[in-house]
Structure formats: structure tokens, C-alpha cells
């Protein structure tokens, strides 16, 4: 191995981060080359100084208030929190049940009043228009059909 190649990989060799297949070659070169040995020593020294300084350095810590405020967020109203069984079910299931309940309530009211089905629109004399109201059980949407008794639906054939 040449000095040029060894110097390229010395920073990794200094921290034992070199691939195993290169280790032996670098070791052999460094042991026989004073210049590379000196450079390797400098790398190792600078790394150990930095590590020591980093350990001795005062780094910030949490105040108890900051930590309490954060850990409070791990409890209520966060995903993964244990919820009552009915709330833990998927939302679409709860929505369907609610929709069915409302639909039943509407149908019950309609039956109670006896006005389910076609309703006659009162006009003077004989009623000529009949209306039919359809109510969606899920959304509560109402569709009203007005049917004219006198509509000449065979008119085109004549």
C-alpha cells in the first residue's frame, strides 16, 4: 500500500471503522511508515480529545416543568390511548348505527301520523296532483315527487 492510499483511509482506520479486508494492509503499511504513523497518532489524539471534551461539556437538560408538560401529552387525547370499547370501533360503524337510528325514528314518526305513502294534494274539487315523499335514512335527505293525475303520458302515441 502506498502512503497516498493509506492517508486517504487513515481517518477510518483511526476509529476502527475500516472494512476488514483493508485492515491488514493498512496496519502493515503504518507499522513501517513513520509519516503515516504520525498522522494516525494525530487522528487518534484529536478524536479522543474531542470525545473527552464532549463528555466534559455541559449540555442542556430539561427543566422538570418542561418534562412534565411533555409527558402529560402522552396520556389523554393521544392516539393509542385506551378508549371506551364503543369509541375504539371504527368511525364508519358508529356513523352507520347513528344513521340507522335516525332512519328508524323518521319512519316511526311517519307511521304514527299515518301519512306514509302517497299524499293527495288538496285542490278545489277532485285532486289532480299526488305527491310522494322519500326520506333517506342515512342523510335525512328528502325527495318529493309530484305526480299529475291528468298527465297525458300516451299523448305521443296519438
Amino acid at each position, binding site marked *: 500500500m502506498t502512503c497516498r492510499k493509506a492517508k486517504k483511509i487513515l*481517518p477510518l482506520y483511526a476509529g476502527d471503522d475500516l472494512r476488514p479486508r483493508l485492515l491488514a494492509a493498512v496496519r502493515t503499511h503504518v507499522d513501517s511508515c513513520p509519516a503515516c504513523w504520525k498522522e494516525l497518532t494525530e487522528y487518534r489524539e*484529536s478524536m479522543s480529545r474531542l470525545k473527552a471534551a464532549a463528555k466534559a461539556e455541559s449540555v442542556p437538560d430539561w427543566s422538570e416543568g418542561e418534562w412534565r408538560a411533555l409527558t402529560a401529552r402522552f396520556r389523554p387525547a393521544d392516539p393509542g390511548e385506551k378508549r371506551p370499547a364503543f369509541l375504539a370501533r371504527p368511525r364508519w360503524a358508529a356513523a352507520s348505527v347513528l344513521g340507522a337510528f335516525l332512519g328508524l325514528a323518521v319512519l316511526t314518526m311517519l307511521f304514527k301520523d299515518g301519512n306514509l305513502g302517497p299524499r293527495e294534494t288538496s285542490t278545489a274539487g277532485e285532486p289532480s296532483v299526488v305527491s310522494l315523499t322519500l326520506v333517506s335514512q342515512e342523510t335525512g335527505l328528502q325527495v318529493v315527487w309530484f305526480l299529475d293525475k291528468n298527465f297525458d303520458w300516451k299523448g305521443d302515441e296519438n
Partner: protein
Amino acid sequence: MRMNETEKELVEMVLSGRTEAFEPLVTPYRQPLLALAYRLTRNREEALEVTQEALLRAFRSLARYDVSRSFRNWLFQIAANEARDRHRKRARERTAVEDAARDKPPFAGPEAGRERREIRSDILQCLTVLSPREREVFVLRDFEELDIKETARALGCSSISVRVNLSSARRKLREAIRNDFPHLKEGR
């Protein structure tokens, strides 16, 4: 380093709905996480925000945690990602501000002033010679002592990329210590 039995039990408790177990699970890492974020962001308030967001993310995605991995390294990965996201966002904002102020007289801006105030320690000053990626790799590998594979995993890059950046970081730091921080070299 894999997770220990106590951690495993605490993870299972949190996943079964006993969320109060999350606090004892992460408490041993509260200071190391903040220190990591501080070395990556060079600002205490930002480090605090990064750590908070990282812990909340960890809480939300605990179900996806692979128990064969070290829990500490998994937390470090989340914190490093969060710090990088913020750094990119800040860089975009800074670019936008610079674009808008191109015609105005030079002004360092509150960001630069804040950064100057925050760079107090020699370690942090040394780290300023590194690019963001080199700093991430160096801090995780040499300060937090993750191995090359774990560092690559934490940063979402290849082992080759980690080696390249690590080599470059150590070379720059050796130069910086020799030229600008001789007292570190002498161990003062």
C-alpha cells in the same frame, strides 16, 4: 445493542393501551436525546423542540418499532430526522428571506445573531467546520457511539456514505483542532 426486557415489557404495556408506561420507557433517554439534538441544531430551544417532537413521533409510531433493534438508536434516528427536517425548512425560509432582501443593505439577521450567541462551547465551534451531513455522522458515530451500520440506518443512507462523510469529518476536525483549537489538542 438490543432492547432490554424491561423496555420490551414497557413497549408491550404502551401498545396494549397503558400509555402511562411510555414515560418510564423514554425517561432514561431524555438527556441523551436532548444532547444529540443540541449538537445537531446548536441551539437549546430548537433542540428542545426537536426532542419533544421526536418523542411524540415515537409515541405515535411505537407500533411500528422493530423490537430487534436498540430502542435508544431508534429514538436517535427519529431525533436526527426531525433535526434534519427542521434544518431544511429553516434553510428554505432563509433562502426566501435572502431573495427578498437581495437589494437591501447587508444585514446578518436575527438567525445569524442567535446562532452566534448559541455557539458557546469549543465542541460546538469545532462542529461548525462540518457540513450538516458530516456533523450528523460524526455526532452519531463518535459521540453517541453508534456503529457504522446503525448510523447508516439512523440517517437513511448507505454505509459507504457514512464512511465517506465520517472520513471527511475526522479529517476536517483534525485540521480545525490543529489550527484553531490547540488547547483541545493539549487537553486543556
